[in-house]
């Protein structure tokens, strides 16, 4: 299959790369654009590890082809913050020990970043409901829920 050029914006920058029509967006981000922070956990849309934000919505990059992302605006975990300047959500994950092996973390951060943008004051049950689309095998989820609620509060306070 002939590769096509895919142009899109990733983490605020214009990017382009080559993609066969069947190339998954996850593989395109990881291996063509070298953004390896997005992880692939199941390749069938259940675990959520590969979640990225596409035009404001949390999407599974293993269930999208790269060519479908033409012209979109994508945020990956690399676009959320830096080690020196963590986002409020990343910082809350650190403080609450909401990650252990870190493999599922990128997908959870992107999912929850999208959630807090839409719903700045979610209830614990709402956080759990949305989080239930991501699998974490290490933490038991409890510190993740705590971290998301804590971050939500801090983001609201900063805006107030």
């Amino acid at each position, binding site marked *: 299959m002939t590769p096509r050029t895919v142009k899109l914006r990733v983490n605020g920058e214009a990017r382009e790369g080559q993609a066969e029509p069947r190339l998954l967006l996850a593989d395109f981000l990881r291996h063509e654009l070298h953004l390896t922070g997005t*992880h692939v956990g199941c390749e069938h849309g259940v675990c959520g590890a590969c979640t990225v934000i596409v035009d404001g919505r949390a999407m599974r990059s293993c269930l999208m082809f790269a060519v479908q992302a033409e012209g979109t605006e994508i945020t990956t975990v690399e676009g959320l913050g830096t*080690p020196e300047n963590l986002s409020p959500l990343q910082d809350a994950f650190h403080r609450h020990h909401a990650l252990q*092996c870190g493999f599922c973390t990128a997908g959870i951060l992107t999912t929850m970043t999208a959630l807090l943008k839409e719903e700045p004051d979610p209830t614990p049950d709402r956080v759990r*409901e949305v989080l239930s689309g991501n699998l974490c095998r290490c933490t*038991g989820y*409890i510190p993740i829920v705590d971290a998301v609620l804590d971050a939500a509060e801090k983001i609201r306070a900063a805006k107030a």
Partner: protein
Amino acid sequence: MQPKPEGLDPKTFIGQPILRNEDARFLTGGGTYSDDVTRPGMLHAAILRSSHAHGLVRGIDASEALALPGVVAVYAWADIADIAQPIPIRLAPLVGLDRFPQYCLASDKVRFVGEPIALVVAESRYIAEDALNLISVDIEELPAIVDFAGASAPKSLLHDAHGTNIASAYEVQRGDVKAAFAEADYRRRETFVCQRHTGVPMETRAVIAEWDVAAQHMTVWGATKVPFPNRATLAKMLGLEDKSVDLIEVDVGGGFGIRGEFYPEDFLIPFAAKKLGRPVKWIEDRREHLLSAQHSRDVSCILEIACKSDGTILGLYAELFVDLGAYVRTVGGVVPAKAAQFVPGPYRIANVGCSVQIFLSNKTPVGTYRAPGRYESNFFRERLIDMAAHDLGIDPAEIRRRNLVLGSEMPYGIGKLVPYEPEGEYDTGDFVAAFERALQDSDWNALNARQGEDEDGWLHGTGLACFVETGGAGPKETARLVVRKEDGGINLFIGSSALGQGHETVFAQICADALGIPFKGIRVFHGSTTYLDEGYGTYASRAIVMGGSAVLNTAETLIETMKPLAAEALGFPNEALVWKAGRFETESGGSSIGLAELAAATAQEIRADGSFSSTRRTASYGTHVAHVAVDRRTGKIRLIDYYVVEDVGRIINPLIVHGQAVGGVVQGLGGAFLENLAYDENGQFLAGSFADYLMPTATDFPSIHCTSLELSRAPSNPLGAKGAGEGGTTAAGAAIGNAVSAALRKYGAEVHELPVTPSKVWSLIAQAKAAAGQ
């Protein structure tokens, strides 16, 4: 638990909830996991796996695959036959098991769905997977063995040469079981089943291999758990010296016992890289993972208890039936051996016997998963104790209190219940104190008063389960400390591997205290064979006990090593110097020199090597309490609250220990309620996706309360640490089995089998009603 605020500057770091060093890179996409490793000119591999449970391989035709553009090579048995060696047993060498090893590719037979048949190497993973579909394999199907009945009355043999599907069978005993049962007031015999389930880390397995032909050196990325013994295995298989092979541990996305054992791919990928002279990467996909990463549990038990009428347990006799799958791999024997050893658990039971039948089936080979053998036996024993308590009219808490081993009985000998080990013991502990604390934390008396209460069709039930786990020992662990020239900080190299627990933080805490220096200046390098000449790895909750103690010993050596250098630099004799808060000072206090100045003043690198050895295991122990409500109309179960109290000896980082406990509970609850590596009667695998193999999600178990205690330090190691990390998992099946049975008490229904699913509970209720003529 709320961590202490940033900027914390404790006098000691051990015991503090220090936030993890690892987090910043994991949170920003900066981790390097196996699939992030890329080498120049790298090829990609995919593996053709058997879709048959049992059959004769009549022929393999890869010509079409080889003709596909981009395919570089296809390897099958014929290509490795002249050098093929079986995967060796690493632990638990029970008599007979070594007859059934796995080779890295199937030869004349396939014995489970998922067994590797051929390896395709291509320019991309996509092409390699395309090529898999172009290989035709002619397999003549044979009848599949899927249970003990089939294995023991064989219509079909997995390994014809040995004439049996029973891999090993043995009896162990302490005391006089026969006499105990003869004199007992009460006996009960029940059959229990713990289903096949396993660790399923979020990162699948991976191997990237590169052969340096000029140096005749093999480098393999993706190693973890036990890189040093795996290096020796791979070197032997490739006909190389150990020093010609390095295993590199990058960031690891979870292990839980199953990841990092030696698998067929750990040979196949380096073999291909060496043969082709190009780096080769293989990343397991999720279906492959569920099919071929080691399964675990899968133990059935006929358990009989003998008691006095006051509930004193006189004896236990267990017949264990353990399905090891098609081959005996590195640690398969641990599951039956530890299931048998932990049948009596934390109780004072003088007379214990186990008959263990270890059989083969046409299923994926078994290995260890968090609390191996223990999870199963805790379920069997704790269920039967509850049944006995009910029969004898004794409260479930009271019967446990009467039988738990007392602190005054420590060290408590547990006899020789493992054929390949000497007599065992529980080193220290106050089992009753942890038990009482769990009753208090959970407000047991209030919960117990609600047993069976019907609240709008939801029946309340509460279950108790007590456990003890021994671990934290084994081959020696090694450490090296190097003083960095540029800033006087410490580079800490450790043979222990890290699978996501937070070792870069806890080893730095231990080192900071041992040297009296700031935590921030210590960088931890772990796992890879390039860092140290020898080392071992991380399993059986041993990393802190063994690796942490090696760091302590090495720090002492480093101070001794530096002393003459400091004496020379300061112009005082050795004996005039004392090491204090990271500096050598003269006793009078006049002059001093720190690590940075010392490193600057010394031409050679300042470093020290050290190790720690212990064969004496540490006993971690505790109690689980589960409170459930069961919908009597649908069988649906809601976990209302879950409590764990465990003693882990000494807590290096309470934040991390707490995380291990809570995460461990949720894994244990997955096994109790959801997870099942199911097969049909033909040995066809039924759990090959995350839509079929259900793991806990965020909505399942929101209310978990864990307390870790430091009641009894371990005498085996200078830290006093015990294993931490398996206590949350180990008794979850037991506590849930008891809680659900308590909820169903009015029907007289008892849980005998995990997982406890709504359909099973509904059936239990329906059967009980039918039996009662309702």
